[in-house]
């Protein structure tokens, strides 16, 4: 019995982990108590857990992303604190391994991914004038699978031990011999389950965008964000199955002693590196392309000007997506693949700078002669352009394979990708969050606090990451938990730590802004407070669950249909209100996902009976769903008219 429980113990406990355990247990108890006290279980089940409304599913992704931003951020600060002074004893080597591994996985897969998926969910149907996504129930399932994968990953540091082989989980380091705890099992299975959800999202949104656009909306009239979402989802569908296979092989190597990546018996550790990056490099573009989409929306709105070079913007997205699959070995130039291969991948990697440059120049040309209004989202965009360009330039430096032998696996690399991902993805997500906040919640975030947040964040960012370029070129290796006084890295690392602290303050300012604005912001802002351009602003605020009473017709408009309607008097809503067909909520998807969670947990600890039971549960849910007859329901015309009349009376702008 005690042996059974011993396997769940954390193999390398420390005071920090005990504190984390206690706070998680207390936090969970408090949460359950609050929900029970206010009798919210029924409300949560009916309105959120079982919902098929794309807007609500989007908001659930948003909450997940923000919580994970906090968790990944704490990991980041712990690392910077450990490195702030030489020979620090705050974290030991093993704990440091676990922290940088989870920081990477959490930030990429459980923060950035749900953040962009939030925008897919919330924006795409609204921008194309649809009532929902193509498969609303699959959408709910996708969220819960993603959520369960995230949950499974996050319990690893209090049950059984965290993964410690880096977010890339390179073999043989990730094999049982060198990663002895169950941590890497968690990595393999949690990513597998979350990845399934992501693949479903990809299929759902490709179908939605191709098949459910409003009348008159040709592909080259789609708003820029929808274009970026389409391309990102196409990359998802073609890249994630590669990860699925790699993770399955990795799981089998660890659990059943197969020989894919093992050393000996013919196994090949480089196969993992290749498969991982065949997925991993396109993954970077899955994140950055929607971010570009958000910036395009923000920049054209606040330059009060149509996006410059719309067609070239679309083509550059397409070209980037093709190139993204042709550059993966630049992640391991130094692992002995030969000069010829390195040269090919060096050139394709540099070539990506061309379409990206096209986009940067188009944004600049949009700003040129624009009537620029500096709002918080616009300020994020204005900080993004120079900072991201710096990240791009250092990316080209890394793409020179001969030179890469000097700075591979140093802090230079760390500085480069944070320099791309933070001003690129994180700034875009926060710009989009601020931009669409009034559409979601009916009040604006405070502008003064918002702008201060951007400045503090950029200041912290520069302070934190620019020194890493220097220490990297001087030879400070990444993933090393400490360094000697004699290395001379200490001053710059201390500066980085201060920068990380300042960045943390900016995130706290964001939280404070949300709370402050929730308390103080006026609620009578109408439905178009920014004077914006896309169809998503042609809805009421709050958006009724059917989105549009009448499907918009954009035959006479450009890609910025709502702007045209305001400026040229184009009529968007033609025809009469009719009965609206809506899908029913479903709890089965949640139950199915729970079985996935249990099955994943069982496999982590090699409890195969429990795994088989949950597999049967999964198949039973699918069988039940197959036989079920569900036709959804109709909202009657009179009811829609009543709701619409109520909005008109309250003065919600159309």
């Amino acid at each position, binding site marked *: 019995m005690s042996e059974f429980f011993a396997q769940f113990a954390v193999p390398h406990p420390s005071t920090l982990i005990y504190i984390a355990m206690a706070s998680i247990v207390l936090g969970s108890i408090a949460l359950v108590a609050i929900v029970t006290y206010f009798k919210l279980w029924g409300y949560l089940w009916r309105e959120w857990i079982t919902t098929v409304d794309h807007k609500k599913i989007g908001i659930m992704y948003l909450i997940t992303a923000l919580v994970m931003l906090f968790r990944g951020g704490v990991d980041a600060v712990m690392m910077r604190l450990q490195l702030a002074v030489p020979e620090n004893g705050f974290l030991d080597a093993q704990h440091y391994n676990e922290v940088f591994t989870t920081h990477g996985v959490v930030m990429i897969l459980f923060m950035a991914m749900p953040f962009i998926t939030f925008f897919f969910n919330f924006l795409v149907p609204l921008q194309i004038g649809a009532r929902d996504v193509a498969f609303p129930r699959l959408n709910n399932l996708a969220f819960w699978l993603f959520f369960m994968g995230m949950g499974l990953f996050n319990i690893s540091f209090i049950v059984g031990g965290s993964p410690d082989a880096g977010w890339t989980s390179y073999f043989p380091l990730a094999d049982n011999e060198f990663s002895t705890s169950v941590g890497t099992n968690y990595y393999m299975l949690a990513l597998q389950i979350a990845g399934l959800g992501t693949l479903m999202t990809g299929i759902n949104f490709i*179908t939605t965008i191709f098949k459910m656009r409003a009348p008159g909306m040709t592909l080259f009239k789609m708003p820029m964000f929808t274009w970026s979402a389409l391309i990102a989802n196409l990359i998802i569908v073609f890249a994630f199955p590669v990860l699925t296979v790699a993770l399955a092989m990795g799981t089998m190597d660890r659990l059943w002693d197969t020989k894919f990546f093992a050393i000996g018996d013919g196994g090949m550790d480089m196969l993992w590196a290749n498969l991982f990056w065949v997925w991993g490099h396109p993954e970077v573009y899955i994140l950055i392309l929607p971010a570009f989409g958000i910036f395009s929306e923000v920049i054209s709105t606040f330059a009060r000007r149509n996006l410059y070079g719309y067609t070239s913007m679309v083509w550059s997205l397409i070209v980037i997506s093709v190139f993204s699959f042709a550059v993966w070995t630049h992640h391991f130039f130094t692992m002995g693949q030969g000069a010829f291969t390195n040269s090919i991948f060096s050139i394709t990697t540099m070539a990506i700078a061309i379409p990206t440059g096209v986009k940067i120049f188009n944004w600049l040309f949009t700003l040129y002669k624009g009537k620029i209004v500096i709002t918080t989202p616009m300020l994020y965009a204005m900080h993004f352009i120079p900072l991201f360009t710096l990240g791009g330039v250092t990316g080209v430096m890394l793409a020179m394979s001969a030179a890469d032998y000097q700075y591979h696996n140093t802090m230079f690399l760390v500085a480069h990708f944070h320099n791309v991902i933070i001003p690129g993805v994180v700034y875009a997500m926060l710009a989009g969050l601020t931009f669409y906040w009034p559409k979601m919640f009916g009040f604006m975030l405070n502008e003064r606090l918002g702008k201060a947040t951007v400045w503090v964040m950029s200041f912290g960012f520069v302070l934190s990451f620019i020194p890493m370029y220097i220490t990297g070129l001087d030879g400070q290796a990444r993933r090393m938990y400490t360094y000697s006084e004699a290395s001379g890295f200490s001053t710059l690392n201390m500066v980085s730590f201060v920068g990380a602290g300042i960045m943390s303050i900016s995130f706290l300012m964001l939280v404070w802004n949300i709370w402050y604005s929730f308390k103080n912001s006026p609620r009578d802002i109408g439905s178009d407070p920014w004077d914006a351009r896309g169809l998503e602003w042609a809805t009421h605020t709050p958006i009724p669950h059917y989105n549009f009473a009448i499907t918009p017709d954009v035959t006479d408009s450009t890609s910025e249909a709502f702007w045209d309607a305001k400026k040229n008097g184009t009529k968007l809503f033609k025809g009469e209100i009719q009965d609206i067909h809506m899908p029913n909520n479903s709890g089965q998807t949640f139950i199915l996902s729970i079985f996935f969670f249990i099955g994943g947990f069982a496999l982590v600890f090699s409890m195969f009976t429990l795994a088989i039971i949950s597999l049967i549960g999964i198949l039973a849910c699918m069988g039940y769903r*197959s036989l079920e007859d569900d036709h959804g329901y109709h909202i009657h015309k009179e009811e829609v008219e009543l709701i619409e009349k109520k909005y008109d009376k309250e003065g919600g702008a159309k």
Partner: protein
Amino acid sequence: MGKVNNNVPLEYSTEENNLKIFGFWTFLGAEIMLFGTLFASYFVLSGRTGDGPTAAEIFEIGPVLAETFILLTSSFTIGLAIHAMRLGSKKATLSFMGVTLLLGAAFISVEIYEFVHYVHVGAGITTSAFTSALLTTLGTHGLHVTFGLFWGIFIMIQIAKRGLNSVTAGKTFVFSLYWHFLDVVWIFIFSFIYLKGMM
């Protein structure tokens, strides 16, 4: 349920079915990547046999030919089922689907025999990188066929209970796409794993 269009086959007659069929094609795109990755890994590892047997030593042409004929025939019979469905014959649709699933079950039986044989001659999944990749690739295809058997049975139950309507027709059509796809994958397995391995 959207409006019904009578000028197209039953499975394409509603908006909802159009979405589902398109979505399924997209899913098949993902499946191509999945099997493509498995094939690529197999080709990388196929010569890396360690101390274990090589492909030429363990492959037997008999069962493989049997599997090939059985599965290709089942692809033909699922085509007949769709044809019967378009002619509106519930009984013929069910019969041809039944034959398809029986052939699928026969395929799985031969494959299980084959796997037992591999283990028997010392080519288990843990023997070498080659056997791991071989059995994982074949096993993934086999699991797909097995899943298809259950899926097909559930669709047959619905056709038997509710007859041929836009919902059951859509499901049957999607199932037929899935089944043909598994056949295409098998042709690749037959050509590039077995024939190449035996040469």
